[in-house]
């Protein structure tokens, strides 16, 4: 039985569809990231899980129990807000103790023991009496995490918890965050628009687009075998060429792209169908090869050159160890994949 399950969650705000039939399962102790551009509905899904936004249709199950009709305070979920939403009128102690005091109603002594333990856990021992406006962004983030963890929620939800931090701190804290959540074996859903963060932190990543969940998979699968053009282009750099299937033979298809026939693999529909041919820049081997491209310009990225080229009027992105120019021959390290249009 999944620890957390979303079944067909749907929400409209007037004309805007924020979530359309979103379903997924999160296993006990698993960390799922919901990834998508801003406005794709990932935060709405998170708010429906927390009970802050009632879904139009669909159910939320926690440990098999249908919590859809329950208010947020009765669900046993913790939520780390994007801007942390720390209570400015309370100290760090007051914030972390809030859920223990007004939610679980623990006696005072137990509360302070718990708070001390949590602050130690997030590396903020001795911060009890600090006021919220005295905290740095990174400290505020840890307090928000400690506060959400304090009532021992069954599921932890994180809404862009690192987006307010500057880049270096973000990278540092995301490692700490994953390590901490794994140590506590917390079941968590993490919403982010940063694909690198999602892949670094999560066991599985769900990619959302315009209210729909397009694909849920482990990060390597998601990167190597995207199922839609959107997923392919949203994670990492991708070359997507439109083409038409010419013929099919065991596991491979021949696709005509800009007048050139290219073998590709993947779930192939019938001949004559319009598809995309998908491959990443690192799948291209420069030098000998059956294909020829014309280099437009190259950008130096430090460890390599990113080369913008043309393959018969189609854009081609590839990586090289030196600045290329003129015409180059290339081949594919492995056959490109087919994606339905």
């Amino acid at each position: 039985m999944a620890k957390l399950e979303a079944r067909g969650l749907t929400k409209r705000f007037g004309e805007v569809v924020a979530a359309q039939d979103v379903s997924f399962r999160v296993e006990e102790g698993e960390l799922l990231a919901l990834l998508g551009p801003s406005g794709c509905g990932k935060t709405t899904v998170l708010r429906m899980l927390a009970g802050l936004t009632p879904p139009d249709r669909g159910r939320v199950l926690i440990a098999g129990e249908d919590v859809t009709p329950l208010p947020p305070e009765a669900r046993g979920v913790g939520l780390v807000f994007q801007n942390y939403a720390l209570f400015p009128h309370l100290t760090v102690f007051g914030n972390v103790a809030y859920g223990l005091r007004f939610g679980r109603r623990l006696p005072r002594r137990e509360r302070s023991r718990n708070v001390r333990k949590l602050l130690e856990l997030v590396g903020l021992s001795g911060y009890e009496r600090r006021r919220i406006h005295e905290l740095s962004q990174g400290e505020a983030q840890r307090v928000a995490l400690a506060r959400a963890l304090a009532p021992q929620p069954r599921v932890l939800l994180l809404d862009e918890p690192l987006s307010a931090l500057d880049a270096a701190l973000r990278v540092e804290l995301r490692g700490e965050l994953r390590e901490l959540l794994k140590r506590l074996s917390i079941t968590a859903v993490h919403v982010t628009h940063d694909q690198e963060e999602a892949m670094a932190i999560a066991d599985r990543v769900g990619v959302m687009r315009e209210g729909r969940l397009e694909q849920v998979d482990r990060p390597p699968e998601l990167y190597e075998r995207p199922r839609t053009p959107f997923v392919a282009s949203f994670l990492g750099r991708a070359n997507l060429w439109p083409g038409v299937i010419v013929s099919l033979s065991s596991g491979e298809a021949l696709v005509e792209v800009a007048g050139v026939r290219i073998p590709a693999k993947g779930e192939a529909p019938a001949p004559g169908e319009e598809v995309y041919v998908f491959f990443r820049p690192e799948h291209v081997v420069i030098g000998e090869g059956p294909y020829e491209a014309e280099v437009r310009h190259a950008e130096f990225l430090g460890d390599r050159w990113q080369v913008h080229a043309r393959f018969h009027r189609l854009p081609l992105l590839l990586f090289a160890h030196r600045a290329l120019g003129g015409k180059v021959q290339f081949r594919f390290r492995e056959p490109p994949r087919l994606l339905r249009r």
Partner: protein
Amino acid sequence: MALLPLLFLALSFFLPLWQVLSQGLKAEGRWTAARLAQLLSDPYVLHLLRFTLKQALLSSLFSLALGFPLGWLLARYDFPGKEAARAFTLVPFVLPPITVALGFILFFGNSGYLNRFLIGLFGLSSPPIKVLYSLWGIVLAHAFYNAPVFARFVSAAWEGLDPGLTEAARTLGARPFSVFLTVTLPQILPAILSAFALVFVFCFLSFAIPLALGGARYATLEVGVYLYARVYLDQGQAAALAILELVIALGLTYLYIRGGGIFTSRGQVGRPQATVKLFSRPRQLFWLPYLFLSVLVFLGPIGAVIADSFTRPWQGQGPTLAWYGMLFSPAQSPFIGGSPLASMALSLEVAGMTAFLALGLGILVCWALRRMRSVLLEALLMAPLAVSSVVLGLALLFAFRRPPLSALASGPWSIVLAHTLIVYPLVVRVIRPLWQGLDPALVEAARTLGAGGFLAFLTVELPLLSRGILVAGAFAFALSMGEMTAVAMLSRPGLVTIPLAIYHFLSARRFGAASAMATILILTTAGAVFLWEYMGRRLLRGQA
């Protein structure tokens, strides 16, 4: 929960208002507009109407003339005491109108301080300045009262202007004065028009100042309703006049609200305006006459009240505390039909209860309006805003004569209710924007941490709003202390608050007693606001 404030307003506001309507529009049990038609052909009523509009227009223009330069000074110049001057622009909100009227009589009156000084200086035989007991006395007092409103609006708008625009105009070759006319003025004009509309409504509905400075001859509609209801004892006529006033005031309020959208000026953009040190250039000596005049007009009357309260009642030397001694003795005073001490106790009691009720009602209204976004609900919940104090007083006067409110008729409840209805919209105006400004994620955080909706309100929203609640409570208290219009409508023997006592002393020309009482009133109202503001800041230091 939205039902609670609605129920309260139904009983204490809509039902009484209905009774005014039926009194004014019913004759022999039938609805008819006959009385209203008759009213509009009555020359006295037409005189009232004309005079009310005329004095409101003149008062607004004079307020503009007196207040605009002050706004300019605050926006563009640096001078010692600038913050004090800025705080002074809050005066109209805390200074009770009856004390302003008293100050004007004492300072500008025929035997007032100014005339006595001028007679002594130039050896004149008659007072050179005769403005009181005329249209001009009322206009001048209104200008004193409302100029700070213009100053606030103008300085806020001016300080919010992008200095880049005037600099651009200068680099394009415009001289400072034409920059003012072509760039600055058009941008602050919306603020000036808003202030004008607001001040016009204030002056239209003014009561204590025309009553004390004008009498029956220079009465406004508001005073007219009072005279019919409490002096001539003609309830039907009072109700009909009240309906007429209600219609006009509703129209004005509607115009103000409609205009509000057009008039609002844009917020702060870019850098703040640079300020200049006052008198850093010889040209700025032109400010001297204005400063002299404004010190005379603004500080003269208040100073006169305070000075007079320490002046011996008969020829004698040196200051005296005799008037204060009289106020604090339990002896009855024939002029106010009770002891001054009892008046002060009553005012404190009423103001305390009003602050409490208005805060409760105001918070409930904010809460309801936050939950349910409905124009109709908002109009219903804020309706008392559109009804003048005299009309409200008249409505409650009728309502307290019959059930259900007659059950409360023994205490000061009618006054408390009237004040609550007058004051709570202000509480809503203070608290509502603060509440809307709170990050909704804070309450949601409390909810996900296990606190139910009401507990989250108590532990998160209420503490964060406490500063605003304290300020609103202080204003409610101060306004109730100084309010005289509804009190005059509802008073009865033994139910005389401080402002009404001042008015009675004033009518009996007992200026010393009136001044002593007015000084106490000014200190209490100003003290309440400043102390609560200060204490609020101390208590909640470091919090949002």
